[in-house]
């Protein structure tokens, strides 16, 4: 059973993107506006006469979302497709699910493909839950008989029995998503293509979905392509991986290898980015060039672990030579949805004077990380002698992994908010 079900050869996809020409002046004469309008009309009229696409903007640029991509997938593989935003993952899935056609190259697929690029595609707000199950099922490629056979299972999975005959526009968003996912989870094609859809719903439901996906892929040698930014679920689900970067395959192999590759690329780019970022404020007497994470003993780590100590080192270059002087080093933490969680700053703790070297680092020891697993964005500020020296918005991210926070041997997972608090519980009579 190791025959190839998907083979991709030299796949390329081009999009045309229009740009507005930069306007030097804010105000322009009427004549300029008119001539530009006429020129633009002339071009679109010409395009239309030739039957070409109309592109808004003054100049047109080609953009290759995929470039000469080749790989093969064998029957029964569960492949995690990972890569940064804009790497071409979604375009690849769109081509595989026949929504759009490639510009060059070819794809050969053996078997029925069902794609799940969004939950609840085609759901109609005016229709009831029951009607929407049939509608959505049909859109995803299930036959009426198949849906009927699985109807009870779907309703059970979504936990919406009571509201089956209510229009879905009256559903809470959680119910809506659960119902939508439940239909999709009961698809049984030979090849399943899934885009980042598990990131919806509450954590409890996400786990249930992941479990369901695992059952789906484990049974009958079904092939799954799975796109996600959530590395733990990719690792849990997938047997192999494909990493995309700028439209080409950077790595194709074991899932662990792919994730490692992805992480190191993230690390490299963010590190390189920090040094070369131009969008910083400050007089530059001190420049942050890198941020690294270390465990209690100072060993370099890629991520913090919930419940463990973490050392955050902020590496800099400056024009000072080891003088001890008043500095203000601060970084904050924002959750995934942008909520400001907290701020770390040396001046809060009374350590207002620190030694500043030509090259060096400031270290913040966080004795016990009390964040749940996830990734937290941080903005960085360094002031020297009460003047802003360097200020970087969204300078780095702290990835946090699940950990044994309470020392119970059980991992604290992503449920119920971002923070974990130390706590003591007792019971007493009154």
């Amino acid at each position, binding site marked *: 059973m190791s025959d190839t079900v998907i083979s991709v050869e030299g796949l390329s996809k081009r999009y045309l993107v229009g740009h507005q020409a930069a306007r030097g002046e804010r105000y322009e004469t009427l004549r300029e506006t008119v001539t530009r309008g006429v020129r633009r009309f002339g071009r679109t009229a010409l395009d239309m006469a030739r039957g070409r696409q109309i592109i808004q903007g003054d100049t047109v640029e080609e953009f290759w979302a995929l470039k000469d991509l080749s790989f093969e997938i064998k029957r029964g593989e569960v492949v995690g497709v990972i890569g940064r935003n804009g790497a071409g993952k979604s375009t690849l899935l769109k081509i595989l699910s*026949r929504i*759009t056609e490639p510009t060059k190259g070819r794809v050969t*697929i053996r078997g029925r493909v069902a*794609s799940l690029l*969004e939950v609840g595609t085609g759901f109609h707000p*005016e229709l009831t839950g029951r009607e929407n199950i049939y*509608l959505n099922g049909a859109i*995803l490629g299930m036959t009426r008989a198949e849906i009927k056979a699985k109807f009870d299972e779907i309703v059970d999975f979504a936990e919406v029995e009571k509201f089956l005959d209510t229009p879905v526009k009256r559903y809470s968003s959680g119910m809506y998503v659960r119902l939508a996912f439940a239909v999709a989870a009961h698809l049984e094609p*030979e090849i399943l293509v899934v885009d980042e859809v598990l990131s919806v719903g509450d954590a409890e439901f996400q786990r249930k979905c992941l479990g369901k996906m695992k059952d789906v892929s484990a049974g009958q040698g079904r092939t799954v392509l799975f796109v996600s930014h959530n590395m733990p679920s990719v690792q849990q689900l997938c047997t192999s991986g494909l990493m995309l970067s700028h439209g080409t395959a950077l790595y194709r192999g074991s899932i662990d290898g792919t994730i490692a590759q992805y992480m190191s690329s993230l690390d490299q780019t963010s590190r390189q980015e920090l040094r070369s970022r131009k969008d910083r404020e400050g007089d530059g007497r001190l420049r942050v060039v890198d941020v690294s994470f270390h465990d209690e003993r100072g060993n370099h780590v890629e991520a913090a672990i919930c419940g463990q100590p973490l050392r955050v080192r902020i590496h800099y270059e400056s024009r000072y030579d080891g003088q001890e002087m008043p500095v203000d080093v601060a970084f904050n933490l924002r959750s995934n949805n942008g909520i400001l969680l907290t701020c770390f700053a040396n001046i809060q703790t009374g350590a207002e004077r620190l030694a500043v070297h030509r090259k060096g680092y400031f270290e913040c020891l966080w004795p016990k990380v009390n964040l749940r697993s996830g990734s937290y964005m941080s903005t960085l500020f360094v002031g020297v002698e009460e003047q802003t020296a360097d200020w970087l918005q969204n300078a780095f991210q702290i990835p946090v992994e699940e950990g044994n926070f309470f020392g119970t041997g059980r991992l604290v997972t992503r449920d119920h908010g971002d923070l974990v608090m130390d706590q003591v519980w007792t019971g007493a009579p009154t």
Partner: protein
Amino acid sequence: MTIESHEIVLEAGRAERNYWRDLWRYRELFQVLAGRDVAVRYKQTVIGIVWAVMRPFLTMLIFTIIFSRIAKLPSDGDAPYALMVLAGLLPWTFFSTALGDASLSLVTNSNLISKVYFPRLIIPTATIVVSFVDLLISFVILVAMMVWYRFAPTVNILALPLFVIMAFLTSLGPGLWITALNVKYRDFRYIIPFMLQFGLYVSPVGFSSTAVPEQWRLLYSLNPMVGVIDGFRWCILGGNSHIYWPSLTSTAVITVFFLWLGIRQFRKMEKTFADLI
């Protein structure tokens, strides 16, 4: 589930050989989408399905007053004027809602097009089915009016299904063509309502096509709705109305031409819908 071991090759510009088989495989989706549109059409309205009857009825009333009472135009033979207007109004209302809705159908379903694959031909066709259901419902007024005027149909009525199919095809061809163009050039959204309004006056809806001077009749027949409307009248009004063969032939030719053009253009542009929409 049956494991079909079929193979698909995706390549640029490759015409799919099994397109029509695919269309057949997705017939259930067609039913479901048409069913959805029908179910949703009159949701959250007070009088619901009565709207399907109200619109042609009120239009009939107004047209009868204007064209018969004020303009004093003759009816077909001895048929009551209102009945003659209704016999023309039914196919026209169907044609205009079908064409109007079908030409917007791809754009209104853009979320489906950018997220799932299926033969796109399903969407405009399913939309036309909704107008078709409206047509069937409005036959109720026709029956009621015939009872009111004690007007008995002749055997001609048996040919009505043929003309219903003709009306369906007449709206499908241009509908497919325009909806495909509308994905690329949204100008058609504004052109269509105007064209339909215009069409209402150049088609023999409020008056009999015999009112058109003989020397203009052939030119007039280039409007494909003339043949369809004349056909409806011939079926419903029996011997009072006569089939004008040149217009029927030209309708058939124009319908086939538009169907060919519509399907060809649609198929040609179909693959780029997701990128443009």
